C-alpha cells in the first residue's frame, strides 16, 4: 500500500471541503465537525462536483440533481444516483494528511 500526501490539516478546517486530483482521480476531503472523510469527489449520477454540495447531519447533497450520500460510508440515501461513493482510507502523521492509494 502506498500513500499520497494531500497537505497540512490546516488546509481543511472544520466545516470545509476540499477536492484534490490524485493520479487522475478527483478525491474530496470533508472536515465535518473535526472528523475527516475522504470520498470520491464526483457524483455517481452525472458527475457533479460534490465538494460544492451541502452537508447536514452527516449527509451530503449533490449540488446538481439532489442525490444524497452518507459521508461516513458513501452509501446512497436518495437518488437519482444509484451507486454509492468510493470511500478512501487516510492516515495523519505530523499534522499532514496522507491518502491511501492502491
Amino acid at each position, binding site marked *: 500500500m502506498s500513500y499520497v500526501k494531500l*497537505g497540512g490539516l490546516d*488546509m481543511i478546517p472544520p466545516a*470545509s*471541503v*476540499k*477536492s*484534490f*486530483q490524485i493520479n487522475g482521480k*478527483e478525491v474530496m476531503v470533508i472536515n465535518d465537525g473535526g472528523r475527516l472523510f475522504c470520498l470520491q469527489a464526483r457524483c455517481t449520477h*452525472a*458527475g*457533479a*462536483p460534490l465538494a*460544492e454540495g451541502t452537508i447536514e447531519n452527516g449527509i451530503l447533497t449533490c*449540488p*446538481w440533481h439532489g442525490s444524497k450520500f452518507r459521508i461516513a460510508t458513501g452509501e446512497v440515501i436518495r437518488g437519482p444516483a444509484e451507486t454509492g461513493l468510493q470511500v478512501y482510507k487516510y492516515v495523519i502523521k505530523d499534522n499532514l494528511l496522507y491518502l491511501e492509494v492502491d
Partner: protein
Amino acid sequence: MPRDIVLGNGNLAIALDKNLRMRDLFYPHVGLENHINGHKFLLGIWIDGAFTWVDEDWDIVSNYLPETLVSKCLAAHSKLQIELEVNDAVYSFSDIFLRKIAVRNKSNVKHEIRVFISHDFHIYGEDAGDTVLYEPFLKAVIHYKLNRYFLVNGETEKKRGFYEFATGQKESFGREGTWRDAEDGVLSGNLIAQGSVDSTVSFRLEIDAASEETFYYWIACGKTLEKVKEMNTFVKGKGVEQLLLETENYWSAWTNKESMDLNLLPREIRRLVKTSLLVMRTHVDSEGGIIASLDSDVLQFSRDTYAYVWPRDGAICAMAFDSLGFQEISRLFFEFCNRAITDEGYFRHKYWSDGSTGSSWHPLLDTGGNPQLPIQIDETALVLNALWIHFQKYHDIEFISKVYPRLVVNATEFLLSYRDGKTGLPKPSFDVWEERTGVFTATTAMVCSALSCAAQFAKVFYDSERQKSLDKVVTQMKEAMVTYLYDEKLKRFIKALYPDGTLDRTVDSSLLMASIYGIFDSQSKPVKETVEAVLDRLWLWQGIGGIARYENDEYHRVSKSVQGNPWPICTLWLSRWYSRTAQSFQELNRSLDILVWCARTSISSGLMAEQLNPFDGRPISVSPLVWSHAELVMAAKEYLDSYKRLQSAERK
C-alpha cells in the same frame, strides 16, 4: 436592469434578468445580431383563475449549477403557494436554448396550473418585417426574418406540447402584444402575424397537493427553416433532460483544468473564479472576438451598448484565460486581433465580433481643431503585452510566428512612431477610461511595457540590434515618465499631461498601472506613495468600501458624498499590488480581503458589474462586465502565486 444569468456556446449567447426573463439573444455571433435587444420574454403563471407574471412580487434566487453554464433559479410566490425551479442552458454542441421548469404546488389542494412564456423577438435588432406563425405539423411556433429562424417548442413530462398559443402584432396601432392575451389564462390561437410581432405559448399542468410537475421548452436558432426543423427533431429525440446533462458535464470538464489548483483559496473565492471563467467564456465568439458585456440595457452613448470587442478588455481577458491554462481561447482572440489590426499597426477604438469596425465617440480632430488619431493606444499596447505573457507561458512559437508580423512588428513600429520627439513619451491619445485626450501615466506605462515585450520577442528571434534599440527606448520612456508624469512635491505620479501643457493631478486608480505592467518596481518609493494616495483618496471609507475610479467621477455617479462609485476592477488592482508586495501572510491577507469583498458584492449567481452602488452594493452600469471577471481571475492567481512564494520562503 442588470443580467443575472448569462449562457452561451460561442455562437449563441443569451442573457436573462433576475425575473427569469430572456433579455438578450445574440446569434450567430456573440455580440452581433441581438434578436431581443433588451426587450422581455415574460414568464407567467395562471392558477385556478388567478394570473401573475414572475416579477418583483416573487422571491427569486438566481444561481448556476456549480462549475456549469446551466442555471438553477428558484422563484417562489408565498401567496399562491407555488415554487418554480428553472434550469436554463445553451446546448454546448448546437445553437439551442434549453429550459426545464419544475413547478411545485406547495399547497394542500390539487391545482390546474398554466405556465405562459412570451416571445418579443426583434430579429436583427429591429421590430419591423418579422413573421411569426404556428407550425401545425411540428406543433411549434416559428419566428423568422431573412436568414434567421427561431423555432420555439416544448413538452411536458407526459409528452404534451403547448396547451395554447397566440401570435399577433405589437408596438403599433395600440396593440401591446400577445402577452396581454395571456392574462385571462386563455390564448387566442391566431395562426400567423407579420410586421412587428410577438407570440405567447402556454403549458397546462395538473399538480396534486404538495407535488411537482416538470415541463421542457426550447428555442432552436438557425439560418434556414430546414435547419431549425432538424434541430427540433434532434431535441425531441434526445430529450431536454439528456441535453442538459451533456451541457452540465461539458462545462464541468471545461472548468476543471488539471493544471488549475485553486485549493488554497477559500470556497467562495474558488467558486467565483470558476464562475468568472465561465462568464468570460460566454462572451467569447467562436471567431475569437471577446465582447465587453452581453447586457444591452445600458445605453452608453446615443442608444449604444457594450456588445463590442474592445481590444483592451479582450487582451485583459486573454491574460486571465492564459493565467489559468485556457490557451486555446487566448489564441483564438489573438487570431481575431491579427485580422482586426490596421495595416498601420494600431487598433481602432472597438469592433463588432465579426471584425468590422464598431461605433465610436472618438473624433478625428482634437479640441484645438488639429487632426488626431481617434484611438486609445493602450489597446494596441495591451494586446502586445498579452501576447508576450501568452508566449512566455506556452512557448507556442509556431502560433506566434503566424501573428508576429502584424501583432508584434507592425504594432511595435506604430508605437515607436507614435512618440513625441521632444519628451520621448507617447503622443496624446484617449485615456483608458475613453474620456480625455492626453498623455496619461497609465497609457504610458502600458506602452512602455509593450515595447519591453517587443524587445523580449526580438531576443527570442535573435534580433540583437532590434532588442537593444527597443530596450533603449524603454529606458528613455521610463525616464520621461519620471520627468513629466511624476510630481516631486506630491511624491506620486499624476494622471496626465494635456496637449496644452496643463497637468492633471487628479488621483486616478489607473495610476496603479505604473507597477502592474512591471515598468516600476511595486516596492519602489514612487509606486508605494502613489498607491497610498489612491488608497487615501479613492477608498470608500463610508458605504460598502472598494476603490472609485478617480476623484469626482461623474459616470453613473450616485452621490457627491463619495469620490465615485466603487469599481471592482480598480479595487482588484489594489489586491494585485498587495499580493506582489506582501512580505508575510498577514500582509497577503489584505489581498484576500479584497477578493472576499468581490465575492460578497457580486450577485447570487456570481456575476460582477462594472460598478456598484456605494451604499447598498447594487450593480450599476452593465452587469456582467467581462473585465471585472478577468481582473478577479488574475488577482486570485496572483494571490495564489504570492502564497506559494511566501510558503517557499518560510520553508527555506
